[in-house]
């Protein structure tokens, strides 16, 4: 894959050092912004360094902390500080907790910036996660909260070999099965490399013995025959699937399937889709909470609900040597008089896209940091269909189909397999220019487009579609974007300043982490902030 000089990769980036380590392993990413990856994956996540529950104790009697935001960062901070003995109050703009850990269900209403209102009409039990939808096995902190509060998890099917890979110019626009693309890419590449070895082109690289091992590995990895060819036979069919599957009794004999043409497969660029499940942050086992991503945030919320005030729009954060004073308005009544909340300390988890518009008393370096982070575009659509046609007609159970259309991908529910009735599919999940474009449309126009494009992969769409809902994150009134988009330069200049305790104020949230857009980043930043704050308080400043 070649990188054009102006390609932009919109995925969240973590620390420069970590990225460099990872990039030596994953040669095709980093500088190379392949189209699928530029608009699909969320970049690399360093292994969480969580080492178990924190046990803060002995808060000074009467000491109080104001927490701004009841997303997962604010909720975790509230929970842990209260456990330590602090008096805690949480101010939240929305009328619910969870922030971007949001699950939309039938009956939910959502009004986006601009006044466009959508009403979710999903059937009972069906849902859509417009924000985070997966939790990697190595996101130890958020998984620990799920465990501690009894939130059931189930596998999220990241890789489904029977899902589709589609390119508008690939194989005449006909979607190909993932298993065909993967097996054939591997098989053809193995055959080529075996030819190179057998043609003595690797003699400078490998000893004869090592070349024999290489050939052995290529035969195994690429399903090559005895002559090191990738061909139509049971070897390749045992990877890619048969034209006629083996049966029972006197059913027809199995018939091997024919691999895709090598050169056409290479030119199609469909191979871009087959790396996604191999990335560390997407490897099995990857989870989702049963019943919706918000279940974890809700479980933490239940621990602290008596101290959470909803409908509070923060307009000013002031501090002096005596304490913190936050001015907040009624989020639904601009005419109501503003109110004040005071405390000894403050943990602010408001996204920087919003915080940069609020008057904050803090050092210049912290304020510069707050203003240094643009927010990335992201878009998702959830579609309810009358029946689970992807299972019934196409035998796709969970997982993701990929496309180079603006919708970028279609994801099938990792739950309720084989059950009769309706199902909700994620009809699009995309970053970059297409995310801006979908966000800029009115909701009905978005759905029209998502359906028109998806129908190129699933012709059943027109007959089976019932209703849908979409979220373009720049239109979300309490987020103004999907996640904080740190550049390397901004990280070097501002990140550490952002994370300092500034007088009586500390920040937390995914933007204050090296795991942008992941809940784990939000949780770890909150844990780190409360520990440092508590240490400072206990030491008497």
């Amino acid at each position: 894959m070649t990188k054009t000089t102006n390609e932009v990769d919109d995925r969240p980036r973590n620390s420069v050092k970590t990225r460099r380590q990872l990039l030596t392993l994953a040669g095709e990413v980093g500088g190379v912004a392949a189209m699928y990856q530029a608009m699909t994956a969320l970049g690399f996540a360093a292994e969480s360094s969580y080492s178990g529950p924190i046990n803060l104790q002995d808060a000074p009697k009467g000491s109080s902390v104001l927490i701004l935001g009841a997303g997962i960062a604010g909720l975790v901070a509230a929970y842990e500080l209260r456990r330590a003995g602090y008096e805690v109050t949480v101010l939240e703009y929305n009328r619910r907790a969870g922030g971007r850990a949001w699950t939309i269900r039938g009956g939910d209403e959502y009004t986006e910036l601009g006044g466009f209102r959508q009403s979710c009409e999903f059937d009972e039990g069906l849902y859509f996660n417009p924000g985070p939808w997966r939790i990697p096995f190595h996101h130890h902190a958020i998984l620990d909260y799920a465990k501690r509060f009894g939130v059931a998890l189930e596998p999220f099917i990241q890789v489904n070999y029977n899902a589709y890979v589609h390119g508008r110019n690939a194989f005449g626009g006909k979607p190909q099965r993932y298993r065909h693309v993967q097996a054939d890419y591997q098989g053809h590449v193995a055959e080529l490399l075996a030819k190179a070895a057998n043609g003595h082109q690797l003699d400078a690289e490998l000893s004869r013995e090592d070349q024999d091992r290489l050939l052995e590995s290529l035969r195994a990895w690429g399903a090559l025959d005895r002559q090191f060819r990738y061909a139509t036979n049971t070897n390749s069919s045992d990877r890619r699937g048969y034209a006629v599957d083996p049966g029972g009794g006197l059913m027809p004999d199995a018939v091997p399937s024919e691999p895709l043409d090598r050169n056409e497969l290479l030119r199609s660029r469909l191979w871009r889709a087959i790396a996604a499940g191999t990335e560390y942050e997407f490897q099995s086992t990857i989870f989702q909470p049963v019943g919706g991503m918000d279940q974890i945030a809700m479980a933490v919320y239940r621990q602290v609900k008596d101290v959470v005030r909803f409908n509070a729009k923060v307009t000013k954060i002031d501090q002096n040597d005596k304490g913190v004073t936050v001015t907040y308005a009624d989020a639904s009544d601009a005419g109501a008089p503003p109110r004040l909340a005071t405390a000894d300390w403050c943990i602010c988890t408001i996204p920087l896209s919003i915080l940069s518009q609020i008057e904050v008393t803090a050092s210049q370096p912290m304020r510069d940091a707050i203003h240094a982070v643009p927010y990335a575009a992201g878009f998702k659509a959830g579609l309810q269909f009358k029946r689970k046609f992807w299972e019934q007609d196409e035998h796709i159970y969970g997982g993701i189909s990929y496309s180079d259309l603006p919708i970028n991908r279609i994801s099938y529910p990792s739950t309720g397999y084989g059950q009769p009735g309706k199902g909700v599919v994620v009809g699009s999940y995309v970053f970059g220019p297409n995310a801006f474009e979908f966000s800029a449309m009115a909701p009905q126009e978005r759905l029209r487009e998502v359906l028109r494009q998806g129908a190129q992969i699933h012709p059943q769409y027109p007959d089976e579609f019932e209703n849908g809902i979409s979220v373009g994150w720049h239109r979300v009134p309490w987020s103004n974007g999907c996640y904080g988009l740190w550049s390397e330069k901004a990280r070097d200049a501002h990140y550490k300043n952002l994370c300092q305790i500034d007088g009586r104020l500390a920040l937390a949230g995914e933007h204050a982490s090296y795991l942008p857009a992941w809940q784990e980043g939000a949780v770890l930043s909150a844990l780190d902030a409360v520990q440092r704050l508590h240490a400072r308080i206990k030491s008497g400043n």
Partner: protein
Amino acid sequence: MRSIQLRLAPALVCAAICLAAARLPSAFADDNVPPEMSYGPRFIQSDGAALYRATCRGCHMPDGEGAKGAGMYPALAGNPQLVTGAYVADVVLHGRNGMPGFGDRMSNDQVAAVVNYVRTNFGNQSTDPLSAADVANMR
């Protein structure tokens, strides 16, 4: 299938567009011209109005009226800061606060086109358009 009632917003008023149900009886009608959408990491549109519709509209809204929520997006309609073309181009290229820059996703021609568009629409009446060369000098 039910039809959708749409109340069209008057030019400078941000009206609530209520959907009784997000159903699309015309989703597959032949007379729908699909919007031009980009293919790849850069915007494909070249006309200023099309670029506005493709991306700026998402935050600054269809009539440049801006928006208010927990935070806000500034209005472009009648915004005195738009008088200074170089300022607008700088913001579009490099971003400002929570707004991302579009310099990596748009060419000099595209940036000039969208900047000139917003400065001559929404009640703005600048008469000194930027050229692509002007934009290039600001990168």
